[in-house]
């Protein structure tokens, strides 16, 4: 399926959004790692993962954040100005809001490039030995960020919907968007 934007552009947009949110809200300066593509469902995971849906007129996508439980606690401690050493509701709320802000800022930039964009509410998952997979093509751009031993990965998947032209019963040309 067709990518909406080229990889370099998406990586640049993720860098800008992540640095702005992490430095402003958490006073945290992170080092960006080497981005990579993830083309298959990740194996069994441990930690915290969040997802936020993105959608435009003829494309759809998902933003995702993932890190270890310890890293999520570090992020929440900085974000909420309190100490957390175990994942609880506050840590998950903070992680959801971080997702909302980073992917929300990414979306603001995206709107300038591809037009009006909708954003879903974030979903956060925490646990051990869980697997995630997308029903659509797995083609994520993964951008890692590190602060000490805290590794936060931001994943983006943006895909144009497939358009199929056909002729309806009145002989008129009609275009469908396949949302598979």
């Amino acid at each position: 399926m067709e990518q909406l934007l080229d990889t370099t552009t998406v990586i640049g947009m993720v860098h800008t959004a992540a640095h702005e949110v992490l430095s402003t809200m958490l006073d945290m300066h992170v080092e960006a790692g080497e981005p990579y593509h993830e083309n298959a469902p990740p194996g069994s995971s441990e930690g915290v993962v969040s997802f936020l849906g993105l959608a435009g007129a003829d494309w759809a996508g998902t933003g995702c954040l993932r890190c270890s439980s310890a890293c999520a606690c570090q992020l929440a401690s900085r974000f909420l100005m309190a100490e957390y050493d175990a994942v609880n509701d506050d840590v998950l709320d903070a992680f959801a809001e971080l997702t909302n802000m980073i992917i929300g800022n990414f979306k603001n930039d995206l709107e300038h490039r591809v037009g009006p964009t909708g954003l879903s509410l974030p979903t956060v998952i925490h646990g051990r030995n869980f697997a995630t997979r997308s029903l659509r093509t797995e083609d994520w751009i993964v951008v890692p960020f590190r602060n000490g031993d805290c590794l936060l990965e931001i994943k983006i998947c943006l895909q144009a919907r497939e358009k199929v032209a056909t002729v309806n019963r009145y002989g008129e040309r009609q275009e469908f968007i396949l949302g598979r």
Partner: protein
Amino acid sequence: MTFEANWKSNPMPFDLLIVDDSAAIRKILQRVLQKAEAPIGNVYEAGDGVEALAVMRAKNVNLVLSDINMPNMDGLQLLTQIRANEEWKTIPVILITTEGSQAKVMEAAHMGATGYVRKPFTPEQINHVLAGLVGSPVGA
């Protein structure tokens, strides 16, 4: 009488309402406000516009800090309700949101928002907005 003029003539602590569906953001704002040197009295919380209106009916609120994108009733709908109410129409409403498009800012200003702070924000930005409302520096 504007909020600023009213506060200058009677500088009592003002009661404030935070409206956001994110518990994390409500918590951060509470912490920022606790550290500010602004004359803040009670701080109430609501998770959406509907809850906010219920708080405003029950409590005396002098300032509203509200998100835009929320379930049930969003921040712009809440702003409309506040401006349409004779008793509340002069209460300052500051919108704090990830929504950063120029069109949304203009829409908020047109609907009577007093100010607009984009997420991510710093404690200084919140203090700056409060300072603008009470006409003097508050906090760091």
